[in-house]
């Protein structure tokens, strides 16, 4: 089989699995909400990987924009108007705007320093939601609101009571996000990002304004991360400061690395494994932190290229 046919088959399998997930998940010990959570986390991990794997820039603070998306959506529905669509829109706008401002401050930084500054900035928003009790609910989280049914004019889809309907609602956004990111990565602009990842000096001396492109990549990445965050709040009908704390950022990174950060779909696989494991472990033992921590250590020591990375290496050998 040619590589092209292989890719088409893999793509068909991925979408078949995603499209049927709510129907077989219960038979393997899952539940529909878990499926939705995997989709949301996968979207966030893929968005992070847009920056990490395809621009070569290490952000350890993406939870901030995820959380801003979540709070933007939740607070809009709670305080402004009971509309799911408006909530998502506001969440995405808030998250992307914050990323555009902070991205402009840090696009000049590189490597470890960039990572450290993104972590620190991420915490800023954590403390804001944590401290601003009256509005955000503080440590207890933002409660007293729900996602609203979608009015399509001719019919109303009840994504609130029907969790399968909500899964497919999320899946539509996931498909749009995946298509959007794939389109950008295949464009001339996407190739300039690869160029920056591969060799920043060469990229600069081909005439690419490197800082500006890193900033744009950061904003695109955060756009999709805040979309994921908004959907995450809708999924739980709730959000709390932990959604934007540093450990959440670390989780996104490990999902991308676990699945394989040089591959477009790697983070989806990483997210599926990580979310399922987290769900299982946290309901079966009190010491879930040790186990998750061990996953981090083992991945770094033994699977640094991730699951899809191993496959690629075999092919090369």
């Amino acid at each position, binding site marked *: 089989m040619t590589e092209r046919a292989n890719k088409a088959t893999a793509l068909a399998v991925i979408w078949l699995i995603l499209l049927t997930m709510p129907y077989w998940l219960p038979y393997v010990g899952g539940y529909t909400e878990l499926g939705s959570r995997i989709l949301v986390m996968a979207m966030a991990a893929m968005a992070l990987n847009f920056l990490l794997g395809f621009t070569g820039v290490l952000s350890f603070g993406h939870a901030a924009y995820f959380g801003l998306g979540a709070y933007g959506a939740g607070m809009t529905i709670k305080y402004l108007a009971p509309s799911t669509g408006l909530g998502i829109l506001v969440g995405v706008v808030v998250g992307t705007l914050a990323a555009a401002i902070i991205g402009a401050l840090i696009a000049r930084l590189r490597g470890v320093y960039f990572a450290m500054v993104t972590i620190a900035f991420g915490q800023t928003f954590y403390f804001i939601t944590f401290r601003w009790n009256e509005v955000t609910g503080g440590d207890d989280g933002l409660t007293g609101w729900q996602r609203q049914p979608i009015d399509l004019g001719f019919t109303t889809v009840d994504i609130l009571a029907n969790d399968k309907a909500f899964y497919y609602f999320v899946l539509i956004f996931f498909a749009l996000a995946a298509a959007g990111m794939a*389109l*950008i990565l*295949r*464009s*001339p*602009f996407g*190739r*300039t990002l*690869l*160029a920056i990842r*591969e*060799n920043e*000096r*060469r990229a*600069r*001396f*081909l*005439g*690419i*304004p*490197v800082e500006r492109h890193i900033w744009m990549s950061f904003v695109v990445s955060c756009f999709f991360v805040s979309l994921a965050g908004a959907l995450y709040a809708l999924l739980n009908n709730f959000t709390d400061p932990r959604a934007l704390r540093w450990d959440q950022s670390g989780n996104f990174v490990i999902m991308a690395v676990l699945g394989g950060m040089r591959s477009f779909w790697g983070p989806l696989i990483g997210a599926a494994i990580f979310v399922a494991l987290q769900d299982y472990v946290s309901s079966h033992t009190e010491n879930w932190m040790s186990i998750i921590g061990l996953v981090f250590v083992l991945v770094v020591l033994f699977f640094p290229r991730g699951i899809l990375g191993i496959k690629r290496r075999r092919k090369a050998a």
Partner: protein
Amino acid sequence: MTLLRVEGASCKFGSLVAVDQVSMTVQPGELRAVIGPNGAGKTTFFNLISGYITPTSGKIFLDDRDITRMPPHARIAHGMARTFQITEIFPELSIRENLRIPVELAAGHRLKPWLSSAEKSAVAATVDGFLAMGGLGAKADRLVGELSHGDQRATEIMMALALKPRLLLLDEPTAGMGDQETYDITRLIRSLHKDQKLSIVLIEHDMRVVFHLADRIMVLAEGRTLAEGTPQEIAGNAAVQAAYLGNAA
């Protein structure tokens, strides 16, 4: 109008003066070689011209436009391109992808979210042209990181050419190459200069190459201009022989 004019450029790193009051004028269509012993400041001088470093003092003009403080990417937009002493390429991409990126940049596609099929085939045809020119057609889909030094060097030069420069800066294009590869590259540079009238400034260690190619030669020693002139003048210059050619052997 001159193409490139450097006026008394200096570059200091702390107390070390790497380039000291160096001036140079390059006319359109000229091939200029910059030579000098190790540590003479040749690469630093190149870095000043291409914008990798900003000079401590002095000015640099391209087409009489002051580019002294212009960032590298903007200089490239004004028609400059360069290669590096240690080959700078995109190792985990194929040769074809390595070339596609500068071809698309030169065509002004940098920010486009997609290309029309006409644009795509134009890009592909241009890429094929450079693959053929560099003798890389057979290996086009292999990762550059896996190829020989000579092929990597050829890829880098083709990438620079794909930018459609008016001034090409080559930093030791034959460094680390075998005789056959050196010959191929020399022939390529000669043809770019003679047939396509491209203006070129090159740093080179191999004197056969320099005297074969250059219209004019500038000799740097300890950061200063030691001599400048035609190959004949340089070959007959006593100071150059003493300071450079004498100990080059």
